[in-house]
Structure formats: structure tokens, C-alpha cells
């Protein structure tokens, strides 16, 4: 039992399908109620898609696992309705400092510009996050959350997936039109279907210690991540320190491949290591208690394809990365953000099943980017050959002297959303735009004031469906055309983005761009129009509004066959 956390025990309920004569058919089953499966279920429920969510366990994540939730993930949590709770409980940080021996060689700021609602990163123990997700899911009637229901067999067919589920009270069958496999690194669904996941195991071991400190090394509002190469307290290896909620601090020690995992977990040995960190960093007066100790290894690998007919793999079941870069849970949650709106359109018959292939294309590209960055970080931290170590040490020695060296220091390239620039759902630009709001990019947030006069943010005005961001007031003809788009088969909800002080006539949805940042970030002029997907990524943009072009871009973004 931890000092700072008591695990909830959720009740298993009797499945209504037990003993039924006919096999029940449901539109969507999600396997795995971890952060990724729960996010998928909440998203589906909010979009009007009922879900059966099954998990073989009856509580949230045990131990010290995921820690860092990135800005884009927090924005998704906002849409799912738990962003405030995660940020309030978690520890916000933007600055990471990297040391070589006893010298600081490099620091980064994840969010160098103001005018975003969410910070670069929030640290929160995974069990807190999962508990918040569970509580959110339980408040949504469209989610049938089944604890201690264990998937035992998966039989994919052309029009659905036959499942067998084991419970304490017996076994039952279920027919799912669609199955989302969010069942983690050792995915039952993946193994049942005999599918490969390819990549490499890294020959290194890391010790995790979660400790409760009785003092504060630095104040909460100036929290930083610290990373050390070859520090005096742990010579020859690397170490990492993160602050989490409740003054629990997570310290990772690189051990090397030859370390004995059992011996390393000895509490006295771990305490000595933690004491050495605190003493060397100037915190000798601070005492601590151990919350959690474990030793881990990791792999960098992915499935060649994330969609197999009516089975969709998300998160760790589909791809696994090294922990350096916080690209595990963050990428899994971003998978669900990408997938669920597409699935809803397909289930509703508004888009062909081929739209789901774009989930594989887009999130496959994101997985490749995450694998590349996390593998590079790992290669830098654990050089594989003598020459690689010499080059790494050369970078670190130069880093203390010149900025050119600092740019090469890789202590983890932290999770940023994929730009999806090569996606087939994007409509290429016809006109020139500056900045980074390219088709495929997630829309940047900006401070806005709503029609109610209250200060808020741009992103919450998007995400419920396709949104047309139109900068400046439209004339009467444009207004008629914009209104028609809102009544289309796939609705496009208009949002006027107006300069400070300007208001739209009744009947329009509008915000004021109070600091001009939305226009700056979108390189917008009066008349500039952006089509935003339900997952808040840019689908298309134009200098002038043209209803036919918008309809074409919606068709492209939903894979409609040409008329």
C-alpha cells in the first residue's frame, strides 16, 4: 500500500449475456480499461457511440508507470471533460535541465510562447489519471464498463468480431461490429489473431524509485525535470528526476544490462541511491520515504498495420517506445483522438470503412516519428559501441562550451503531436500561408472571448464535429452558404473569429481573437477560412470562403468516393 494513494476496487457485475440464447450484437467493444482504452470509450460515448469496455482487472494502474502528459494530450482531455482535473492534481512544468557530471549543459522550454491554455507538460501518477478517466467513464451512460471480464477468444469476420469473455460467473459470447484493442504491450487480441509486432529490445535496465519527500527541492510553480549524464552520485550512467502529485518524486536510474534486477530492488540499496541524489543536488536536509521500486527494460517496436478489418489496435498494443520522451501514453491517447470520430462516421454510414485506413496511415506515421525520436534518445543515453560512446561524450563535453554542442544533447525529445503532413485526408494549399497551421497539423490554441463576454480559449469551440473557422464577418451571400454547410449530410459547424471589439449578428457562432494570436498562428487575413477536423487537426484552408471547396475538403477528409 502506498502512503499517498489507495487503489479503488471496482465491482465486477454479472454480464446480461450470461445464459442468453442468442448472441448479442453491439456496435463497439473496447478491450483494456487503461488510459488509452478509457479515453477511446469516453470519446466514443461523447460522439454518441455506445461502448462495451472490458478489462480483466478491477482497479487502476499499479506501481509507477506513465508520468508525463503533454500539451496535446491535455487538450484532448479537455475535450473528454477531465482536463481541469488532471491539470489541477498534476504538476505543471515546461523547463527541462540536463547535466553532464556536475555541470549544466543544456536546458529546454517546452512552451516558449504564451497564449496557450495548457502547459507543455503535466506530471501525474498513472493511477490518478486512470481513476479520473474511470470516474468520467462511469458518468456516461453510453459506456458499459465491465471489470474482471477477461477476453479469451477473438474471431474476426467480414462483418464483425466474435468474442468470448470469461467472468467469475461464467463465460459469455458477444458479437462486436467493431473492436478496439487497447490491451497493452502483451495484447490478447494481437496474440489471438496471430499478428506480429516488430522492433528491438534495448539491452539496458532502469531502476524506478518513487519517493515521498518531506521537503521541496524547488517550489511547485518552478518545477523542472532534471536529467543527468554520468552524475557524481551515479557515475557512468544516467539518471532522471520528475516531480509528481502529492510531493511524490520519480527518480529513474540507468543500471546497464548486466545489473541484477532483484538485488537492485533491495530497499536499502535504493535508499542509498536516492540519498546520494538528494545530497549531491544540495538537498541533504530533505528526508524521504520509498513509495515504489521496480526495474524495467523496454522495447521499441510497432505492428506493420494498426487496422485489421474490423479490429483496430491503439496504444501499446500497436506500438511501444522507450520511456524517454513521454511518447507512450501520449501517443496512445492521440491514437484514440484520431480513430474515434472516423469510426463514428463509418458506423453511422456517413463514410466508407476505407476512412479507417487513414487511421493506420496517420497514426502509423506518428508511431514512426515517436519510434525514431525515442530510439535516438535511447541510442544517445546507451551508446552501442565504443565509437558511439566517444562521440556521445564529445557532444557532452562540447555542450558545456558552445551552443552547437548543446543542440546535439539528447536527453529525451518530449512528446509533440504529429503534423500528419502527408495524410491523404489533407487538401493541399492552393495559396501561400506562413506559420505551422499546415493541413494535417493540430490547431494551435489561442485566447478568445466568447459571445457571452467571458475570456476563454479557441480549442473548446472545436472538436464536436467538422468546424469551419472563418476569420472576419461574412457578407449575406457567404452567410447563406455557410449556413447550408451546417445542414449538410456531414455537418460543418461555422465559427467566426473576429477582431477584438467586433461582434457578429444574432444567429452566428463567434469569438473575438482578443490578442490576435489565432490570426497570427493561422496566418489569417479577413476572409481566411480553415476547415478543422473533429480531432482538431487542420483539414484544409483557403484565403477566401468557397462553399464548393469546403464540401470537397470534407469529402476528402472523410474518404467519400467521388460523385
Amino acid at each position, binding site marked *: 500500500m502506498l502512503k499517498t494513494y489507495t487503489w479503488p476496487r471496482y465491482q465486477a457485475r454479472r454480464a446480461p449475456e450470461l445464459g442468453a440464447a442468442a448472441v448479442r450484437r453491439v456496435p463497439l467493444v473496447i478491450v483494456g480499461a487503461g488510459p488509452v482504452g478509457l479515453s477511446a470509450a469516453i470519446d466514443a460515448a461523447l460522439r454518441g457511440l455506445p461502448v462495451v469496455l472490458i478489462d480483466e482487472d478491477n482497479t487502476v494502474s499499479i506501481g509507477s508507470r506513465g508520468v508525463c502528459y503533454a500539451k496535446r494530450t491535455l487538450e484532448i482531455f479537455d475535450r473528454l471533460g477531465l482536463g481541469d482535473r488532471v491539470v489541477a492534481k498534476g504538476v505543471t512544468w515546461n523547463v527541462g535541465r540536463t547535466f553532464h557530471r556536475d555541470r549544466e549543459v543544456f536546458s529546454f522550454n517546452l512552451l516558449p510562447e504564451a497564449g496557450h491554455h495548457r502547459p507543455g507538460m503535466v506530471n501525474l501518477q498513472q493511477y490518478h489519471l486512470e481513476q479520473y478517466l474511470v470516474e468520467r467513464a462511469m458518468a456516461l451512460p453510453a459506456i458499459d464498463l465491465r471489470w474482471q471480464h477477461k477476453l479469451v477468444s477473438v474471431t474476426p469476420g467480414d462483418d464483425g468480431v466474435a468474442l468470448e469473455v470469461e467472468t467469475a460467473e461464467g463465460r459469455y459470447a458477444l458479437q462486436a461490429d467493431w473492436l478496439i484493442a487497447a490491451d497493452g504491450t502483451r495484447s490478447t487480441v494481437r496474440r489471438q489473431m496471430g499478428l506480429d509486432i516488430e522492433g528491438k529490445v534495448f539491452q539496458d535496465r532502469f531502476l524506478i524509485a518513487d519517493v515521498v519527500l518531506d521537503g521541496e527541492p524547488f517550489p511547485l510553480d518552478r518545477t523542472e525535470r532534471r536529467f543527468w549524464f554520468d552524475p557524481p552520485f551515479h557515475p557512468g550512467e544516467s539518471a532522471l528526476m520528475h516531480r509528481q502529485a502529492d510531493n511524490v518524486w520519480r527518480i529513474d536510474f540507468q543500471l546497464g544490462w548486466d545489473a541484477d534486477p532483484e538485488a537492485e530492488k533491495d530497499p536499502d540499496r535504493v535508499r542509498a541511491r536516492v540519498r546520494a541524489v538528494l545530497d549531491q543536488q544540495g538537498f541533504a536536509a530533505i528526508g524521504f520515504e520509498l513509495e515504489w521500486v521496480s526495474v524495467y527494460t523496454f522495447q521499441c517496436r510497432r505492428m506493420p498495420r494498426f487496422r485489421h478489418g474490423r479490429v483496430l489496435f491503439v496504444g501499446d498494443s500497436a506500438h511501444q517506445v522507450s520511456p524517454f520522451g513521454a511518447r507512450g501514453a501520449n501517443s496512445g491517447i492521440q491514437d484514440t483522438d484520431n480513430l474515434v470520430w472516423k469510426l463514428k462516421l463509418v458506423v453511422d454510414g456517413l463514410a466508407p470503412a476505407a476512412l479507417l485506413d487513414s487511421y493506420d496511415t496517420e497514426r502509423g506515421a506518428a508511431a514512426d516519428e515517436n519510434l525514431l525520436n525515442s530510439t535516438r534518445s535511447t541510442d544517445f543515453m546507451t551508446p552501442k559501441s*565504443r*565509437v558511439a560512446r566517444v562521440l556521445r561524450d564529445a557532444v557532452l563535453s562540447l555542450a558545456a*562550451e558552445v551552443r*552547437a554542442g548543446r543542440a*546535439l544533447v*539528447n536527453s529525451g525529445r518530449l512528446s509533440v503531436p504529429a503534423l500528419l503532413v502527408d495524410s491523404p485526408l489533407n487538401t493541399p494549399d492552393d495559396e501561400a500561408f506562413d506559420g*505551422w497551421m499546415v493541413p494535417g497539423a493540430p490547431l494551435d490554441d489561442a485566447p478568445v472571448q466568447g459571445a457571452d463576454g467571458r475570456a476563454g480559449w479557441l480549442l473548446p469551440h472545436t472538436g464536436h464535429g467538422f468546424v469551419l473557422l472563418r476569420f472576419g464577418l461574412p457578407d449575406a451571400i457567404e452567410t447563406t452558404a455557410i449556413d447550408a454547410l451546417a445542414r449538410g449530410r456531414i455537418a460543418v459547424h461555422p465559427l467566426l473569429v473576429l477582431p477584438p471589439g467586433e461582434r457578429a449578428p444574432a444567429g452566428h457562432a463567434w469569438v473575438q481573437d482578443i490578442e490576435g494570436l489565432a490570426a497570427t498562428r493561422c496566418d489569417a487575413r479577413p476572409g481566411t477560412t480553415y476547415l478543422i477536423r473533429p480531432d482538431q487537426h487542420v483539414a484544409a484552408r483557403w484565403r477566401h470562403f468557397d462553399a464548393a471547396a469546403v464540401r470537397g475538403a470534407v469529402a476528402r477528409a472523410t474518404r467519400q468516393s467521388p460523385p
Partner: protein
Amino acid sequence: MNRLNTEPNFGVPGQRHRQAYTPGDDFYDALIQAHQGLTDAQSELLNARLVLLLANHIGDLDVLREALALARQGVVDVDATTARRD
């Protein structure tokens, strides 16, 4: 007199990067890959050949002398601590 550029300088002309670290990481990855499968002696030779090629590309002896001095100074500084691990 030209000076040695010690600011981050990797990139591809005409390309831009959302993350400033990307082109440097691309180079470093390519450098490590270039050593793949080589013996230590071959790696040393590769590094030496690379230095000579890049020096010729730079050409300007003022810049090269400054680079040589900066590189050597750091080696003398950290020599004692690095040696113990090899």
C-alpha cells in the same frame, strides 16, 4: 577574419523544421549509422577521414585553427575524467 560558427547550424536549405532539434538529430543519427559494423580501428579511420574532408570543405585556415584550438582545449580539460571509463 571569418570566425568559427559555434551556433546550432544543421539544416537542409529550403526546408524548415517544427522542432529545432530535428536536423541535428538527423545528422547525429547518420554519423552513428556510418560507423555501423566497423571495428574500432576502422571507426577511428572513418572519423579521421571525415575530419579531413570537412576541413577541406571549410578551407579557411583561420576558421580551422580556431576549431582545432577549441577542440583541443576541451580534450585537455576533461581528459582525466573520461579516461577512467575506457
